[in-house]
């Protein structure tokens, strides 16, 4: 005979203001099997929990129903309380009468009626609950960081510092990411390379860190604590272990007309190249799209000059498989191409550049050696117009609906640097709003306006048109003086929106993590779990989760590392016992469940069965790997014969709930 206890929580006035909790407790006390039904002001408080614990002990309860908030909130609290007095924690059921009842209804009578029905459903279910025991699964003490920008580097360094092995997978030939392309950083104006490159070297030299550059993740299997990841090491046609990075091949390569990605295509590189002087690993890579040897089989100059014998034209993609306990995603961002914004003439006027292009134009290692010159005629620009929010805060499908967050600050930085270095250059900034929250950020922007006399104009640029004399006509509105302006400019700089890297979406599919409509990874909770994904064991670092500047990125990178370390420190993790299992006598081996399983937890086996006529037969039946199953329940719905069932949410338990509600 079942002995069930019901405990109805007031949650202060959260529930009690809309639901007559005493009436709920009274109504549920008459349900079959219920031996005690009580209400209390705060059931989750220590005294509330004691009330539950004492009731379990005194009444020898076999099941507990808590009518309170969402199970996401306190299911664990009450399961622990039950376990502490010897009741199997999976014999506790929560009836959510807050989020799904009191918060969304106004009428007390109907809300009370609904709360009673929800309580009855939980009582009906708990009748069929069985004790479950959670298994344990070991944790592989190694982490994977996907992306080798400042976010990935910081995460890897922090994990390595804690003594765990960590691999960085970077798709480009070098780590460093976007920060390596940036000249100065706001709000301190210190040199980006000076603070980034030591970290890159530190990562390369750390005994716990392995860098897979020019590599991509192609497959992810497994689950928290025990992922199996396949990494493709793309053929770079250079033996990494032999190349010394002397750079002789890049000097001698005859194919010199390859657009240089690192300088945003503003100058050229050779077909065999090292992206930049401080690249890590400092190893050459051959670009097969341009290499004459790989394309036509004629040349071989790099191979002849390489004294280390590192050039290998026959190299192919290699796949390596490795097990990891935790995965950190740090795939970063890219600025959008403003080619949908032809009103700014970007696609046909070389003197209209994006902000990242301007970074390279002003960088000492850039195409002009740090002297700011117009790309078209290499003359010094005397008037420069900055256009903010290009593609950000857009209400049409051309751009992004969100604020890209970093543009206001880097534009102020650009404007200030130009005014500092070239006082004869007039700088205009057109903005919708100037958004500079952050430590020392607004002070920085005000310095641009007050000390450096940058002309900030609230208003939008409507049209940028190159003129016959090489100047650029910038037509804009000044919203504060309600005037139409024409500025005779030499250069226009577009502060383009930033978007997640293109590799993020296929990666999210592999990792079964969630993304928002803009392809940013979704955190498990926007306030309380900002660096974890909703998938256990997958953590988020940097701009892949949303637009971020460098300080915020580094902070999140370290936070993600801390979470990963917390996982790697454990020898084993408790598994969720609410997993699927198959009734082999009912299973007909149709494969429906295998097709819908998102985790690859279902396999098939041939098993011998004794038939009613005492003969034996071999049948193909499904079996679930409980360590891989996440308990989503898709298979139980797909199974045509009803052989699949989910522990804790069995078909009969769900039906009992439905019956109780419909009665």
């Amino acid at each position: 005979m079942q002995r069930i206890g019901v405990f109805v929580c007031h949650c202060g006035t959260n529930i009690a203001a809309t639901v007559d909790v005493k009436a709920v407790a009274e109504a549920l006390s008459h349900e079959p099997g219920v031996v005690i039904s009580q209400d209390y002001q705060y059931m989750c408080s220590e005294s509330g929990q004691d009330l539950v614990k004492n009731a379990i002990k005194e009444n020898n309860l076999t099941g507990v129903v808590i009518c309170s908030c969402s199970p996401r909130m306190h299911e664990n609290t009450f399961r622990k309380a039950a376990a502490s007095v010897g009741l199997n924690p999976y014999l506790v059921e929560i009836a959510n009468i807050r989020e799904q009842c009191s918060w969304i209804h106004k009428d007390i009578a109907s809300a009370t009626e609904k709360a009673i029905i929800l309580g009855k459903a939980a009582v009906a279910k708990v009748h069929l609950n069985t004790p479950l025991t959670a298994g344990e699964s070991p944790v592989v003490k190694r982490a994977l960081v996907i992306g080798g920008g400042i976010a990935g580097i910081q995460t890897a360094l922090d994990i390595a510092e804690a003594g765990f092995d960590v691999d960085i997978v970077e798709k480009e030939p070098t780590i460093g990411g976007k920060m390596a392309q940036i000249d100065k950083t706001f709000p301190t104006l210190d040199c980006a390379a000076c603070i980034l490159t030591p970290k890159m070297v530190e990562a390369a030299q750390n005994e716990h860190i392995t860098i897979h550059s020019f590599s991509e993740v192609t497959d992810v299997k497994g689950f928290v604590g025990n992922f199996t990841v396949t990494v493709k090491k793309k053929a770079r046609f250079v033996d990494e272990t032999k190349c010394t990075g002397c750079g002789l091949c890049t000097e001698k390569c005859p194919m010199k007309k390859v657009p240089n990605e690192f300088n945003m295509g503003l100058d050229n590189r050779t077909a065999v190249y090292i992206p930049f002087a401080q690249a890590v690993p400092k190893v050459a890579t051959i670009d097969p799209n341009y290499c004459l040897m790989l394309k036509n089989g004629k040349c071989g100059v790099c191979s002849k000059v390489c004294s280390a014998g590192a050039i290998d034209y026959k190299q192919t993609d290699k796949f390596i498989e490795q097990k990891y306990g935790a995965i950190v995603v740090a795939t970063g961002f890219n600025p959008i191409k403003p080619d949908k914004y032809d009103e700014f003439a970007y696609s046909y006027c070389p003197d209209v550049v994006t902000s990242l292009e301007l970074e390279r134009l002003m960088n000492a290692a850039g195409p002009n050696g740090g002297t700011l010159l117009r790309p078209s005629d290499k003359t010094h620009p005397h008037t420069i117009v900055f256009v903010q929010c290009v593609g950000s805060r857009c209400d049409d499908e051309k751009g992004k609906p969100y604020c890209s967050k970093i543009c206001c600050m880097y534009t102020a930085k650009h404007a200030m640097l130009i005014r500092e270095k070239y006082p004869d250059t007039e700088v205009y900034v057109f903005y919708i709003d100037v958004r500079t929250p952050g430590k020392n950020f607004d002070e920085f922007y005000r310095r641009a306006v007050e000390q450096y006399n940058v002309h900030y104009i609230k208003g939008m640029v409507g049209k940028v048109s190159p003129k016959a004399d090489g100047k650029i006509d910038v037509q804009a509105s000044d919203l504060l003086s309600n005037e139409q302006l024409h500025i005779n400019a030499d250069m226009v700089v577009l502060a383009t929106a930033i978007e997640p890297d293109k590799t993020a979406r296929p990666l999210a599919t592999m990792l079964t993590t969630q993304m928002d409509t803009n392809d940013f990874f979704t955190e498990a909770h926007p306030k309380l779990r900002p660096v974890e994904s909703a998938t256990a064991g997958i953590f988020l670092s940097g701009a892949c989760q949303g637009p971020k500047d460098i300080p915020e990125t580094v902070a999140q990178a370290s936070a993600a590392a801390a979470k990963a370390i917390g996982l790697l420190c454990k020898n084993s993790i408790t598994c969720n016992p609410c997993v699927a299992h198959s009734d082999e006598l009912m299973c007909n081996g149709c494969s429906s469940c295998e097709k819908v399983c998102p985790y690859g937890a279902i396999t098939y086996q041939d098993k011998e069965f004794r038939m009613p006529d005492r003969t034996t037969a071999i049948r193909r039946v499904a079996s679930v790997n409980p360590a891989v199953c996440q308990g989503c329940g898709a298979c139980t719905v797909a199974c045509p014969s009803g052989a699949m069932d989910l522990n804790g949410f069995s078909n009969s338990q769900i039906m009992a709930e439905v019956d109780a509600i419909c009665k």
Partner: protein
Amino acid sequence: MQTFTYYPGCTLRTKAKDLDTYARSSAEALGIALVEPENWQCCGGAYTTATNEVATKLSAVRTLIAGKDTDGLVTVCSACHNVIKQTNYDIARNESMQNKVKQYLELDEAYTGETTVYHYLELLRDVVGFDTLESKVVKPFKGKKIAAYYGCLLLRPSKALAMDNPENPTIMEDFIKAIGGTPVIYAQRNECCGGYITMEDKAQALKRSNAVMESAENMGADMIITACPLCLYNLKKNSCSEMPVYYFTELLAEALGLKENDNE
């Protein structure tokens, strides 16, 4: 031979006869049959400001229905094209409007947007092909620097008209290349000519038209072409420039050897 329904519109019968005549003769020379529907009426341009939304659609839908059984409906005037193509786009996406229009016009079946609407330039690009056109040119505009003037109506709203990139169009420039001329790219080519504002604020219209003409002249244009009767009027009457303004069909006919050479 492909047959298209040809909708001239009111202005082409009066002020803009050149736009119409040379469109017809050139199409014939290019092997395209243009059939003018009987009893056609206003494109709907006169009703765009009507307060009843159904009223803004009726006229254009009548024209669209006339094009249903041919290879498409061809328009030349920018304004007609704008109104008819937008109506076609809107009505295809609005079932309740389809039913309302059906009832007003007492149609047997609702019009659901099945007619394809072509601007004459699209006909040249997508049906004839600029390559074919180039091969049929007998009197190319060699060495002529020609500025294409799009105005505001021809390309916008770009989603509904789906003709070309409204900020950096190429269709008229490609046309100019096909007839042997050199296109001139200038800033004001897709800006407003002043339009109807000439009726109430002559000075403003003058400012706009002058800006267009000056911008084209500064980039070295010898002449300017347009598809819009109102643009042609403004550029001719409301600007101080002496630069000649033509309909694109005039140049087309001339290049095909269908017109006396009076453009020199």
